[in-house]
């Protein structure tokens, strides 16, 4: 009985001490302070799409494979080059970022961008017409003091964020 009480006391103290250790030791935060710190994502990250209309051969495979039905084809004439073709349009209300469209594109006309913040002020902006898809997504930093960071895996602290 007494041994059990002592044992319990010992384990209580151990639990409190380990909690205190992590409470008091500085810089063990593993989360990203999102609007203040923006992550630079790895190169092969499956983010939003960008279209190179000169390479597009209007095959429509991207629209056929899309599991969410987010891609429609539209007849499009480029303003400067007068090039005509059936090019994809993306509806980010439906897109699930599986990247099948990029993988199946035989001419590499669709590209990955590393941007994934599909947040807009107006709902209609979520629909990317061919014009905007060619330019690609451009997101302003959410707040003035935002800075970019790179995450690195660390043996001691899990993840550390370094300024880019």
């Amino acid at each position, binding site marked *: 009985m007494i041994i059990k009480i002592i044992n319990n006391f010992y384990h209580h103290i151990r639990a409190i001490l*380990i909690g205190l250790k992590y409470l008091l030791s500085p810089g063990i935060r593993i989360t990203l302070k999102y609007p203040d710190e923006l992550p630079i994502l790895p190169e092969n990250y499956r983010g939003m799409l960008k279209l190179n209309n000169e390479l597009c051969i209007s095959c429509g495979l991207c629209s056929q494979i899309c*599991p969410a039905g987010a891609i429609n084809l539209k007849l499009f004439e480029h303003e400067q080059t007068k090039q005509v073709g059936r090019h994809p349009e993306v509806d980010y209300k439906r897109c699930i970022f599986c990247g099948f469209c990029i993988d199946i594109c035989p001419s590499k006309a669709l590209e990955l961008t590393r941007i994934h913040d599909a947040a807009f002020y107006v709902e209609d902006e979520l629909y990317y017409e061919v014009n905007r898809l060619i330019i690609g997504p451009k997101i302003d930093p959410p707040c003035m003091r935002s800075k970019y960071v790179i995450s690195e895996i660390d043996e001691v602290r899990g993840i550390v964020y370094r300024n880019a």
Partner: protein
Amino acid sequence: MKTSLSKQQDNRKEIELFIGPQHPASGHMRFIGRVDGDIFTNFIPDPGWVHRGIEKIAENRKWIQIIPLVERAAILDAANMNIGYVIALEKLLDIEPPPRAQYLRTLLCEINRITSHLYGFGIAGIMIGSSTFYMWPFADREPLIDIAQLITGARLTYSYMIPGGVRRDLPQGFKEKALKALKYIERRLNNDYFRIFFDNPVTKARYQEVGVLKRDDAIRLGIVGPNLRASNVKYDVRKVEPYAAYPELEFDIAYEKEGDCYARLLVRVEEIRQSIKIIRQILDALPQGPIIHKKYEKLVSLRKLEEYQKTGIFGLPAIFTVLRPPAGEVISRVEAARGELIFHIISTGELRPYRLRMVTPSFRNIVLFRELISGARVMDFPAIYGSIDYFPPESDR
């Protein structure tokens, strides 16, 4: 199941207690219990609040489009859901992926198993009021999610495995990063987690000898996964019916004898250790070679083939949009993080499956609520729920 709702309350001693459906813990789920004083005399789970009809939707999707769909059953365990479906599809198509693809699949599945168990720990922790142990496992998933992101390009919904192989090869410098993450998680698990939670007298008081599931009951009810193995049954689909690279890898089945809530937690701890062991073996003995079946390697465009040889990112051949597996009926069994996952697919040789049946582990474990909580005290309910690691979206599909 809902008979107790309409029954006349003749016995005034008992009252009906409703828990949920607004997120009692890890998802939307309702429980209807009858309470006599402090003790549940009857306890009925009432699932179906997050039913999305995945099986029916699958009948209207092309074969390749079902890959992202089945992942949505358990978003934390996407790789294991994915491999179950892809193995069934490969049986229909009668193809076998190359060895390197098998190893890469196993690698992702084991990373996913660790993150899923850590999530379970977090939920178990907050349910008995330990908010520290809610934050720690959730934060420690992050390095593992990061290395999964390096392989697949996505954090949770990987859609990594395709019939005949995988979509991408490992990026450069992956091994060092993965080993660092494993070392970190191993230290946290063996030292910090035990000190703050598993060896904590409060946890032991809440968990030990609570919700005991006897060996015979576990077998009779058809329980799967860690919950079964905590009742002294050594059953693991990875050993019984090996798939992917598991026959070539060395690992033990984690099991415990007691069958109480504490044993169910310890089984998961041991499973994480075994997963770490498996990942280390894979990183050391990863075979060289292609990541996709020969049949499909020839079918991509020249530009894509160049990219594949340079960066290791294999595209999808255009034939996947009109994939028509021959008519037939297949069953695949895999060990997902929460237990055995079964896919039963009937094909009539069309663009879409005729029927897809998905039996998820949580669906088979749901009966535990009735068995374990009937007769338990009200304050034991969170402890038992947390230890079962039940995930409503996975059960409801």
